[in-house]
């Protein structure tokens, strides 16, 4: 209890000062990198000055090429994540609330889940071809499926029996109970699952582009590297990082809005 109060009281001023300290940290690192490149401490072919990278990035931002790459990556990410959610939420809720269903698929889940999703890249290429959206979507959906599945499963099981019983006492029918009680409670968990899956989905999208050569940011990075356009390579890496950061921030904000009612955001591991 005391810990929460302490953090709450300190919250705002720390946020403010930490912003400036963080900014200072970023500036120091950028200046050091610039200095290293300018003084030729490391080969400037491989480590161009930060200013040159930013210049290249500025140029690229004006091209359709960069935005097309961002678009392709987002497409694979979005379609795969959507497919994963569309499958994982109903399945998770079903096996979470109906034990025979859970027991029937448990072994299959235990067998499939540990397969590193990237191991399926060759199989996906074989089935869907190298430069197809379905290849990406298959890989992304396979990887993004599991966190959402398990969150949906926990979410359904976490509806407190007390709440269910009092709802029954107030005369809510099974349908109303599902919509008014089970669904919102599960949604809280699913939101967390989708956020975790979003990061995984982006990794898989970029991997598919990088390894197989499907259009998108991953391919742009490796093409820039092999054609020795090193500043462009760094610029694309920066754009990929920014995209990852923005998606995560958007999901976090969405989750916070969605779950403002949820008692004490569950203790969650930072992944």
């Amino acid at each position, binding site marked *: 209890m005391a*810990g929460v109060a302490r953090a709450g009281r300190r919250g705002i001023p720390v946020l403010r*000062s*930490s912003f400036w*300290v*963080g*900014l*200072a*940290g*970023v500036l*120091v*690192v950028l200046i050091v990198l610039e200095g290293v490149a300018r003084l030729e401490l490391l080969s400037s072919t*491989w480590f161009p000055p930060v200013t040159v990278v930013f210049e290249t990035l500025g140029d690229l931002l004006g091209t359709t090429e960069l935005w097309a790459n961002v678009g392709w990556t987002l497409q694979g990410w979005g379609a795969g994540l959507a497919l994963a959610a569309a499958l994982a939420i109903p399945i998770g809720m079903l096996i979470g609330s109906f*034990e*025979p269903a859970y*027991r*029937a698929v*448990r*072994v*299959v889940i235990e*067998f*499939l889940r*540990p*397969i*590193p999703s*990237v*191991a*399926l*890249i*060759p*199989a996906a*290429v*074989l*089935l869907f071809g190298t430069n197809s959206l379905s290849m990406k979507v298959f890989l992304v959906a396979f990887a993004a499926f599991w966190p959402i599945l398990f969150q949906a499963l926990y979410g359904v*099981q976490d509806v407190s029996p007390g709440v269910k019983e009092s709802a029954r006492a107030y005369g809510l029918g099974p349908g109303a109970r599902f919509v008014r009680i089970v669904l919102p409670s599960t949604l809280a968990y699913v939101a967390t699952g989708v956020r975790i899956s979003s*990061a995984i989905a*982006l*990794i898989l999208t*970029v*991997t598919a582009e*990088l*390894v197989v050569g499907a259009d998108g940011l*991953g391919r742009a*990075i*490796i093409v*820039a*590297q092999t054609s020795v356009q*090193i500043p462009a*390579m*760094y610029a*694309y*890496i920066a754009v*990929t*990082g*920014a995209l*990852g*950061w923005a*998606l995560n921030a958007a999901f976090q904000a969405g989750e916070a809005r969605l779950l403002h009612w949820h008692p004490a955001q569950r203790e969650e*591991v*930072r*992944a």
Partner: protein
Amino acid sequence: MTAGGGAVRGRTYQALLLALEITVPALLLVAYAIWAAAAESFYFPPLGEIGERFAELWFAERLTDDVLPSLRRLAMGYLLCVVVGIGAGLVLGAFRLVQQAVQPFAEFLRALPAVALIPFGILVFGARGDSMKIFIILVGAVWPILLNTIDGVRGVDRGLLEMARAYSVGRWGRIRDVVIPAALPRMVAGMRTSLSIAIILMVVSEMVASSNGVGYFVLESQRRFAIADMWAGIVLLGIIGYLANLLFVQTERRILRWHRESKGASL
């Protein structure tokens, strides 16, 4: 869990569940075997063929040529993640200002899909050697450990630290015997996430730039259209993933027994 498990039909019900648990996967396997035999699909060879290739490949010289290099890279990269993540996490958790200064960079690198750094790794370390793969595993998989360690250190009860200080326990003693054990549950949670990321990065880095390793082998088999080989490799990666996780969970159970039980007891 189920409300329907009354005393009368409890036993039959449990037996039914067990039967479901065994028969459904078995039926799926049988169905696949029958279908694969009948369809003679090029992409989905019969199970027997995959099993045969699996035994031929992984119990012969491929074991030392591909499997061991992969495991070596994984072990070294992951070990480095643990050492760097916990070491840096302890320092950053203790010094708030340093932590704030590096926070934006850490957030950025965490959000960056680590595979995007593979081309950079190739530039710096070259494509062939292990160092590139180990580097990629480090920069990709260190974040869950680092951030969880920072959180863990921050969350250490001040009462515990004050008690230790009141009894003249020195700074190093407090870190070793109070801060680290108290933060351990968070560290371990981070290490678990980190392990699965490390396996992914091991596979991808071998696919992109390597001349051996299981990741390399799987992709190469697909390019040679050696489909049974490819599936045998995928199954092996699944087994590696499964065993790594199993090993982890077993270790965690032993180390964090107090944590699991104290949570139950405090309710």
